[in-house]
């Protein structure tokens, strides 16, 4: 090979190209390579040093959920044909991936009740930030009004991006667990580019989405802001679709649809909108067309929105989407099917309702709000949450997330956020009640004795 190149050594190739001053000239300070079985052993050791949702009774949620992932998703996501290609730049040999995108877009469009979906974005919170950019491009205004019911990571992410966009973020407080409608209306002014709320919100409460959309759209005489809802797709079998209640853009975290927890990623962000925003959408979009022989096929389309064509005028800098995770999403929705998504939604609703009533009946445990809940509920404990969680952990129960640790809000002191997936049976909830009740009682006794 060297002879063909016309050099005497491999070193010569580098000597002729890399200036001597910037050559490393030593070995990297990393351990030597290992055989496959040794690396596997190390990765297994690290896995065993974690307590997964397989090893404890976990009610953690707050953005990522331990839903059941059917076996056929593992099989399909591991197939070489889906796992190892790049973005489908050559459509003639990428029809499989492109068709998956097209089907995914159809499923997300159906789920959200909005006509236009892209082929996925990175994940939930950054999808909200991408939607705010769509609003900025659409109306050029500089304020983003948000509900305090958004996930704290979403709020933090949006603030990071908004600094780049040159936009201000104005937070509207909650009242009784949901967005304060009067404050919401008052916050939207003529310079408001986007109004964003979460459904259900971070505290598990179902918002009056129609009222929030109407209030935002009607708050100013001229063209109102772009109304953006951060939705949880798994609840959309029973909750009103964003497209049914005045929402312009629906975004959300897709992990609950057939994706693993993976300590927080990778998953995918869904992004759907009304027709008028189609040319302002971020990310890849697959479209249907015909080949020269008249055969149906799919291509990446509307690419003049994208960075590789439009460069500094692009609608987003997104290049890679989350194609493999979106495959998991569409296969999951297909597996659930038309009836299953409703049945699962009803089951989650019933179990979450049962859990809230059961837990709030414990001494020293209260509902944080009275709003409807569908898959997650918020409690207030008359005890130190961190200490209660530690006591529960000793019993092999993870009772949920410490609300205040996530939001940092003083009013969330004592808050516990409990997620109920279909993997948590009534028996599991009863065990949680027993464990949590005992832990709260023990903490209160200790507080009294101190």
């Amino acid at each position: 090979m060297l002879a063909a190149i016309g050099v005497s050594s491999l070193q010569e190739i580098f000597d002729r190209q890399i200036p001597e001053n910037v050559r490393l000239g030593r070995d990297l300070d990393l351990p030597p390579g290992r055989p496959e079985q040794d690396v596997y052993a190390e990765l297994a050791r690290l896995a065993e040093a974690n307590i997964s949702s397989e090893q404890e009774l976990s009610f953690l949620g707050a953005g990522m959920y331990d839903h059941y992932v059917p076996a056929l998703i593992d099989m399909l996501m591991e197939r070489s044909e889906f796992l190892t290609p790049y973005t489908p730049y050559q459509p003639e040999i990428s029809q499989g991936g492109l068709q998956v995108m097209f089907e995914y877009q159809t499923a997300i469009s159906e789920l959200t009740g909005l006509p236009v979906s892209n082929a996925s974005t990175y994940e939930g919170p950054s999808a909200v930030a991408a939607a705010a950019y769509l609003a900025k491009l659409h109306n050029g205004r500089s304020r983003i009004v948000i509900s305090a019911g958004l996930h704290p990571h979403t709020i933090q992410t949006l603030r990071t991006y908004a600094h780049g966009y040159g936009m201000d973020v104005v937070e509207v407080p909650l009242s009784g667990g949901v967005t304060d409608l009067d404050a919401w209306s008052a916050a939207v002014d003529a310079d408001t580019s986007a109004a964003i709320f979460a459904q259900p919100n971070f505290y598990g409460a179902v918002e009056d989405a129609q009222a929030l959309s109407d209030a935002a759209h009607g708050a100013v005489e001229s063209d109102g802001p772009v109304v953006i809802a951060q939705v949880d797709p798994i609840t959309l079998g029973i909750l009103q679709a964003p497209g049914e209640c005045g929402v312009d853009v629906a975004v959300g975290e897709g992990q609950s649809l057939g994706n693993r927890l993976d300590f927080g990623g990778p998953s995918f962000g869904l992004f759907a909108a009304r027709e008028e925003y189609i040319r302002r959408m971020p990310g890849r979009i697959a479209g249907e067309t015909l080949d020269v022989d008249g055969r149906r096929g799919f291509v990446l389309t509307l690419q003049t929105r994208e960075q590789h064509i439009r460069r500094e005028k692009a609608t987003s800098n997104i290049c890679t989407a989350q194609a493999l995770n979106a495959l998991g999403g569409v296969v999951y929705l297909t597996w659930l099917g038309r009836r299953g998504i409703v049945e699962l939604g009803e089951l989650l609703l019933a179990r979450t309702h049962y859990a809230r009533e059961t837990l709030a009946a414990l001494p020293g445990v209260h509902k944080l709000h009275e709003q409807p809940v569908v898959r997650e509920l918020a409690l207030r404990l008359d005890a130190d949450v961190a200490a209660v969680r530690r006591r529960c952990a000793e019993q092999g129960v993870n009772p949920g997330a410490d609300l205040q640790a996530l939001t940092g809000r003083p009013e969330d002191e004592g808050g516990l956020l409990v997620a109920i997936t279909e993997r948590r049976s009534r028996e599991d909830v009863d065990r949680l009640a027993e464990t949590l009740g005992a832990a709260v009682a023990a903490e209160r006794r200790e507080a009294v004795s101190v």
Partner: protein
Amino acid sequence: MSPIDDNHLHADPGIEGHHPGAGSARAPTPLQRQPATTIFQKGAPGRRAFLCPELDVPQVPAEALPERFRRAVPPRLPEVSEPEIVRHYVGISKRNFDLDSGFYPLGSCTMKHNPRLHERAAALPGHARLHPLQDPERAQGALELMWNLQQALGEISGMAHVSLQPSAGSHGELAGVLLSRAYHEDRGETRHKVLTPDTAHGTNPATVTMAGLEVVKVATNADGGVDVEDLRAKADSDVACLMLTNPNTLGLFDPNIEEIAAIVHGVGATLYYDGANLNAVMGLSRPGDMGFDIVHFNLHKSFTQPHGGGGPGSGPIGVSDRIAPYLPVPVVARNEDGTFFLDEEREKTIGRLRGFHGNYGCFVRSYAYIRSLGADGLKDASETAVLNANYLLARLRQLGVDEHLPLAYGELCMHEFVLSGGPMKRELKIKTLDLAKRLLDFGFHPPTVYFPLLVDEALMVEPTETETKETLDAFAEALAAILKEAAEDPEIAQHAPYTTPVRRLDEVTAAKNPVIRQELV
């Protein structure tokens, strides 16, 4: 002109004995040529795969979810059985070309082999079913892995601090530009310009706009490097940073990198390294030692996270000491007792870029890769990537391909090279696009086409280190055969491909009248 290899998906160029362009070519297999039917067009009412767990709690009272919050019409999802789902998706998967099936020399994408060990490790429940809000003391394995990966990426790049948070290269770029902005703002300076070479990836200028700054292009010199005089003229106190890939998108290591760094630092700006091409220099040269302040990595390129048909990716960033205070949160840190924690309390941070801690599943795979290869193996990977690229370039010259497809710049290359199809278009009447489409009939994924923009009819080839000499030879011979064929009859390439599940698609109509979802009746 013989078939390349029996194992290739579409090994037969497929037009023997047929008039080209008339749609008369042999179909690959009946399955591949079946008309596309989506899952929404299959199934029947009542058919299903999912069996819902039983309702083991009391029915909820109606007021638990008032009617006005309830969905009026259920989403029209498919009604299919599990066997139908499996047949459907396995069927359409066969209409994809993939890295496990054949050579994929897509320039700037680093399509190297994806070891299956990584999938097995990432699927262990301790990784795959670990909740991101698990208490740090009960997620020590994950935090240790992340910390080790931060350390390894820091050593490979020569950067003192690493954050794993960004989700992809473009996300890392956004982090980098926001970091540069934060650095200047903290010093009381408002700098609104970002310099990018005209060879830059499209993500660079798009990112700059999203970060609220303005793109200023820097010219490329006759050797394919940064035009140092143009840089000097444009570098002033309004410049926040210069974004650079080195080796650049022409596959060339910029010999003036030290001078470039001096000019940029001389005006108080920062130097940003787009890590798309890191696969050329691992263990050989480090961005930190070249003077870069901010680096992003593409774990899905250099560190072999599978591309998944367009994601997931992962785009950690590394920074020098002076940029470290602004790093996005969280960063994994180590306590004095050797345990690990998520450091969220960083006073000057630019904030979060996404939920939770980054694409951990990708970290597991890339960490497995780094542990498998070690210091020697990573260096060997880069050396072999560069050797393979130069060998392929030399082989094309030996076959006379350079007569019509000359190297755009330079003589040697790093891990990839860019050919210009300009002479081919003029002399043989086939465009780079035609050449790419004809390559499909030979069972190869074509190189990146029409990028970088400053090369006429560009063809960007990155073979990677995991390809054999035999594969490189076969690819070179295929290119030579296509040029020879075009000299005799350019129509063959002009109407290619012939053997693929579909042939050339009408992208213009698709964009003009977008149909982007299945219509349901």
